[in-house]
């Protein structure tokens, strides 16, 4: 247990070891650990941001869905309204057309009837004329009474 130069040797060795440790061991290890700490930190921040972004996106998507639902409802309502107006219009057009056709038909019927009546009148007047002719062949001059007979046939 003698105190001797060993002490100095140990002192120098201790100093050298500490210097080496300070120079070559401590810095790279601590640097790597700090780097990892930073990475973890930024990773956590990114995760947090991602989460909030996700939430936001969800909210936005919900909003968009709601909006489009509203739009769809509006479109459907519009379409319904349009359809009903179209039906109304079609009805109007159809009834107008029907009226037109009806009047047309009536006119035609009237014309037809008139024509038939005129024909009939002519035939009747002819018949009358023939009968009158045959009855009055001798007494009435066809030329003299033609005007009178014509007026008569017109009143029929």
């Amino acid at each position: 247990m003698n105190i001797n130069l060993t002490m100095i040797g140990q002192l120098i060795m201790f100093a050298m070891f500490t210097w080496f440790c300070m120079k070559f061991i401590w810095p790279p290890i601590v640097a790597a650990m700090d780097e990892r700490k930073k990475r973890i930190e930024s990773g956590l921040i990114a995760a947090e941001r991602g989460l909030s972004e996700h939430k936001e996106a969800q909210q936005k998507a919900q909003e968009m869905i709601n909006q489009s639902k509203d739009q769809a409802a509006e479109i459907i309502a519009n379409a319904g309204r349009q359809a009903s107006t179209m039906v109304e219009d079609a009805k109007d057009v159809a009834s107008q057309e029907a009226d037109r056709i009806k009047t047309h038909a009536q006119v035609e019927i009237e014309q037809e009837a008139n024509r038939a009546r005129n024909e009939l009148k002519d035939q009747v007047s002819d018949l009358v004329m023939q009968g009158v002719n045959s009855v009055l062949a001798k007494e009435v001059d066809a030329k003299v009474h033609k005007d009178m007979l014509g007026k008569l046939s017109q009143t029929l």
Partner: protein
Amino acid sequence: MATGNELIASGDYIKHHLQNLTYGQNPDTGVWELAHTAQEAKDMGFMAFHLDTLGVSFVLGVFFLLFFYRIGKKMTADTPSGAQNFIESIIEFIDENVRGSFNGKNPMVAPLALTTFIWIILMNTMDLVPVDWLPYLAQQVGVFFGADPHHVFFKVVPTTDPNATFGMSIGIFFLILYYSIKEKGAGGFAGELLFHPFGKMMLPFNLFLEGVNLIAKPVSLALRLFGNMYAGEMIFILIALLPFWIQWSLSLPWAIFHILIVLLQAFIFMTLVIVYMDMAHQKDEH
């Protein structure tokens, strides 16, 4: 485990185990040589080296540095592997302690604490190697080189040599002085020694008190570690004197208990180093 030493009486056995392998200057002849006896080693005085203390502590220190250096070089910030985890947990432990106790700004303190802690643990751990193994090995090597086996000494645990503990604590002492003067200025440091704790009127008393306080730091640091490890080593040696079939019943419990002392002493040394460095860096505390 006393095989090979039957001829030595137990007292001699103990003394033999507590003697360092000393290389020094023979005072009679002036020749540098290995001491053959304890008396010779003592006579060499200050001009001598304990080859075992220096050698073992050097090997352990280099082992520590290379191990940490190799892993430090391969450090990644990605998922760490096994050895890196181990190193990181130690670094984190040291860093935590330094952050907790040291308030100044000095990039040297944490590496200093790390070196102190690991080196002392390794040196203390040599105590857990069965007491006869390495000395016996050294004896065989000595015999191989033609030495008398009884004159080959080998003290395995460097921290049971006060030279090792005082070597470290004196290094710490220099650092305390250096940083005290650097941080507080020569005047500030002198003022601390002269005018604390009782003001100008009690100057001599203050100087005595603070001087003792200052000197006590390295002395207590060295003696605490030395005393604990020396006592532990002594008990291992005493246990080794028992019949070999009963030794395990005592050496095993003591070894398990000693693991605690190994770690505890290293931790205490490291913590005190940090605290002393903190005190050296503090300005105008009072």
